[in-house]
């Protein structure tokens, strides 16, 4: 025995003792995803030695081997920015929808198209450029972190040193394209995040559950993506099929009844919690009784914007354009140090650790399209609407970021308006702070009608919350909902013990209890009184 112990290296002994201790103390072990070694070392390919004049030349080199990749990309929503909704029949996608941030991508090229998975989409009245070499391979497959689509170049990185942000003095250097090309690999969090973390014009602005804190999050921020947890890349859940990525915000899988995805049995898309955790994931049976009515995220994402990056909760465009006495744009900050006013953009309110808004949801989202007449007398206008309700077995209660604000609309045609906010021309809002001019130009540029008369209407927009899942011990407690001050107060269509109760039953019940107590006390007092009288 002594020999055996001596034979074991001391380090192993310590490690196994630590492991045993962890097992004994019940700390759940979560193994980080292991990646299979690549079958190709891209630094050995002659085609990737360079030199490259542009990123699109790198794409040409990629396509020499990956012959089908460009065609696959061009069939995806990432390329077309179009989405035909099977349930509602609406044509959605970034080319079509309006949101409550900067309005539409249309008329704001090349700023918005800097996040297109391609190069050179300067005019969204036209489809994206047709050449295969216009596909951007590097934004998704760069592993060096040095590739950056410059914000104003319609998808290209900069090829000369260029200042960003404007006026900051910070010079962005051209990327070393041969080095980047020789180091391509599977997409990581930072790849997807380079666009999806910065939606709405900045870090964390749009989603609330997607921001740069997820590049390397703590376990307590996101147990799946944390290097100390699962170290998942986005595509571990958003599984792909020929470059088509699963998991859509327009048609959410609000209740995955397929459960754990097994090859040969299911669709193999893993963009739902149930894909890995199954339909009965809790050890405590009573918790499993909740999964028919509650999305996993409702309890397991207790708050969003938890990583130190604030998200915009309110954006009032109607106040944009105020200038100081010198005619210069104004910037103000709130107590937390977040921007609260910009002459370019109006008033903001930011939030961190935000408690979600909850609603019944069957996964289908309908949009108020830009050409759609709406009821201007009953604000706030819903930019998107959530389908589903308590009586629909396909619906569950989901968490959302509720984005609110004020947006311009056409007072005559009663429609929303495309907003030309970005552009080097003299008409964009951000160059001259003149709303009428910017709206008129947007109409001319996009062909969308504008009567010339406009006002601002309060709007709201729902963003499903699904990321930033902490370890299970940080999930909501029972009392978060089963209490007087329930998070789900007002949700409707559900009886929640501890929150819902018939007020008349309580009034009558406690009255009877009180009367009984009073009767007993009076009877007892009378007994005492009469006994004393008898004794005296």
């Amino acid at each position, binding site marked *: 025995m002594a020999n055996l112990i001596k034979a074991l290296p001391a380090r192993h002994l310590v490690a196994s003792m630590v492991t045993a201790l962890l097992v004994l103390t019940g700390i759940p072990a979560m193994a980080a995803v292991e990646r299979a070694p690549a079958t190709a070392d891209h630094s050995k390919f002659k085609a990737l030695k360079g030199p490259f004049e542009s990123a699109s030349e790198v794409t040409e080199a990629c396509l020499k081997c990956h012959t089908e990749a460009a065609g696959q990309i061009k069939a995806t929503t990432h390329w077309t920015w179009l989405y035909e909704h099977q349930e509602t029949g609406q044509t959605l996608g970034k080319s079509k929808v309006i949101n409550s941030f900067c309005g539409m991508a249309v008329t704001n090229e090349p700023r918005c198209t800097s996040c297109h998975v391609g190069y050179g989409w300067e005019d969204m009245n036209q489809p994206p450029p047709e050449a295969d070499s216009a596909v951007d391979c590097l934004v998704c497959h760069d592993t060096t972190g040095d590739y950056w689509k410059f914000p104003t170049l319609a998808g290209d990185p900069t090829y000369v040193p260029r200042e960003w942000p404007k006026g900051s003095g910070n010079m962005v250097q051209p990327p070393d394209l041969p080095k980047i090309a020789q180091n391509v690999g599977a997409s990581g969090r930072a790849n997807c995040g380079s666009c999806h973390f910065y939606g709405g014009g900045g870090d964390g602005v749009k989603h609330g559950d997607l921001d740069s804190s997820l590049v390397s999050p703590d376990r307590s921020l996101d147990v799946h993506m944390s290097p100390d947890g699962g170290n998942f890349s986005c595509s571990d859940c958003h599984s792909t099929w020929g470059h088509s990525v699963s998991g859509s915000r327009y048609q959410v899988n609000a209740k995955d009844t397929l459960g754990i995805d097994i090859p040969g049995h299911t669709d193999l898309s893993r963009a739902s919690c149930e894909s890995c955790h199954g339909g009965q994931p809790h050890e405590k049976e009573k918790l499993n009784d909740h999964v028919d009515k509650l999305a996993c995220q409702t309890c397991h994402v207790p708050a969003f914007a938890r990583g130190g990056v604030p998200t915009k909760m309110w954006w009032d465009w109607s106040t944009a354009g105020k200038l100081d006495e010198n005619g210069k744009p104004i910037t103000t900050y709130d107590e937390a140090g977040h921007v609260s006013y910009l002459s370019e953009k109006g008033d903001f309110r930011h939030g961190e650790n935000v408690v979600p808004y909850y609603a019944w949801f069957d996964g289908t989202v309908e949009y108020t399209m830009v050409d759609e007449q709406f009821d201007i007398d009953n604000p706030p206008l819903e930019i998107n609407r959530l389908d589903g309700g308590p009586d629909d077995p396909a619906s569950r209660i989901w968490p959302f970021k509720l984005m609110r604000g004020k947006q311009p609309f056409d007072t005559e045609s009663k429609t929303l308006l495309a907003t030309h906010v970005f552009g080097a021309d003299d008409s964009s809002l951000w160059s001259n702070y003149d709303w009428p001019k910017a709206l008129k130009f947007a109409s001319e540029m996009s062909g969308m009608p504008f009567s010339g008369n406009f006002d601002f209407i309060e709007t709201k927009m729902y963003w499903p919350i699904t990321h930033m899942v902490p370890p299970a011990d940080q999930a909501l407690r*029972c009392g978060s909902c089963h209490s007087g001050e329930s998070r789900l107060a007002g949700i409707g269509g559900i*009886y929640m013990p501890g929150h819902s109760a*018939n007020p008349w039953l309580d009034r009558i019940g406690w009255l009877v209890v009180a009367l009984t107590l009073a009767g007993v006390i009076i009877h007892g007092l009378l007994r005492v009184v009469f006994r004393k009288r008898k004794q005296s």
Partner: protein
Amino acid sequence: MSRVMVYKRFERFWHWFQALLIFSLLITGFEIHGSYSLLGFGDATRLHTIAAWSLIVLWLFAIFWHITTGEWRQYVPTRDGLFAVMHYYLIGTFTGAEHPYRKTTKAKHNPLQRLAYLFFKLGISPAIWVSGLLYLFYNDWPATLAGVLSLEAVAFVHTAAAFAMLVFIIAHVYMATMGHTLTSLIKPMVTGYEDLDEPAGKP
């Protein structure tokens, strides 16, 4: 007068264990209902469920005991002497009258007690249990049941029965103090023995 065994060992165990469980169920139950916050909803629910299952098991034993010993006859209602007992509690107890009922081991509950306990056993308890089990297994209701019944209705009945239980207990505990002395009725429930007007030595 002789000292006789009125409440046998099982009966006493049943009574006091049931009392403990019912108090636990009332305290946790009204927390689950949302009347106050004590243990937290999760712990209250867990304790409530454990106590409920314990009470059900206890009752299975008690039902078996009642049937096999014939003790169920103690709860057969009678009108004979009912009004005399009611009159005693309302008036006689103050004027110094004697309790009109003569307790024996064969009929140890007075007519009012019989009625109250029968209502407890056949009214309140079954209502609580049926509604409670439906409540507990809400997610496993067959479709036919789910079509006609709502959780809200089940919770309503369960809570209403809990109020009835609370009222019963207040009255029951108070009336247990109405013997010759404050504790003369409670002592036999602990020791099993009471002085009755019947020959000693009977079981």
